[in-house]
């Protein structure tokens, strides 16, 4: 990609698409950063948040953390397989990643259902507003990542022409994972 003879050139190892994904992730850091900063100062500034947080299910969230961490691992295995030209390994690992994403969303849906059944809706107070907004926005990102990975998977069924996209979709997927790594303790464990 960066092998054009008629350009000034990039630092070693950097490609245009990778650079673009990082720029995009920078703007995403600001979205979740703004949200988390707001949550943090509200929480430190008022009483009763830890009590409200007790109503959440750490079990669901811990399993979901495990699922996302595993899917990060499988997507990176998919990238290794892609580099080796191993279409089979790529498809298996990418498929597992997609399954992991879907599993995460399924568990999340189950969790929402139990909470709403127990009477905790987005309108139940400021903690629940933050909880549903933060996890909901994150869930949408997971959904987006699943779609991206499916697109890459479908393209990789026949050829390895667009295989660099495995790395790009993977970068995004890891970012979504990192966001969850922080949401988990912020919402459930503290």
């Amino acid at each position: 990609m960066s092998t054009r003879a008629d350009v000034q050139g990039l630092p070693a190892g950097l490609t245009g698409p990778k650079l673009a994904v990082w720029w995009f992730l920078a703007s995403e850091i600001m979205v979740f950063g703004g949200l988390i900063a707001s949550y943090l100062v509200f929480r430190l500034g008022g009483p009763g948040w830890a009590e409200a947080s007790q109503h959440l299910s750490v079990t669901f969230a811990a399993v979901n953390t495990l699922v996302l961490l595993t899917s990060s691992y499988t997507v990176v295995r998919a990238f290794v397989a892609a580099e080796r030209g191993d279409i089979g390994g790529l498809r298996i690992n990418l498929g597992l990643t997609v399954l992991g994403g879907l599993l995460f969303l399924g568990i999340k849906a189950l969790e929402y259902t139990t909470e709403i059944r127990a009477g905790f809706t987005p309108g139940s107070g400021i903690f629940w507003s933050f909880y549903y907004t933060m996890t909901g926005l994150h869930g949408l990102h997971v959904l987006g990542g699943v779609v991206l990975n499916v697109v890459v998977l479908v393209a990789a069924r026949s050829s390895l022409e667009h295989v660099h996209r495995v790395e790009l979709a993977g970068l995004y997927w890891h970012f979504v994972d990192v966001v969850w790594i922080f949401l988990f303790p912020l919402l459930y464990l503290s």
Partner: protein
Amino acid sequence: MTVGHAHPNYTAVFVWLLALLGVGLAASLVPGGRGVALVVIFATAVVKALLVVLNFMHLRFESGVIYAIALIPLVFVAILAVALFPDFVWHAAPRGAP
């Protein structure tokens, strides 16, 4: 397509991630001493995030441009959070319970 750059041992990183997840969960279950538990919980979260970013996202192998793109937003988030403290954390009027 970048080919042939170094790979970290992804499986080892994954095992570390699982171990840290366990440590964080265990800390949250220990009764009493919330202060220490919170430090452990958030320290493991930071280390987990660093492991993912440095190894899985290959930040270890990237040029300075990528470091700048990834770190500058964090600086701005930190500035925003700090500037919000006086109005929302040290704010005198009582805020209603959540």
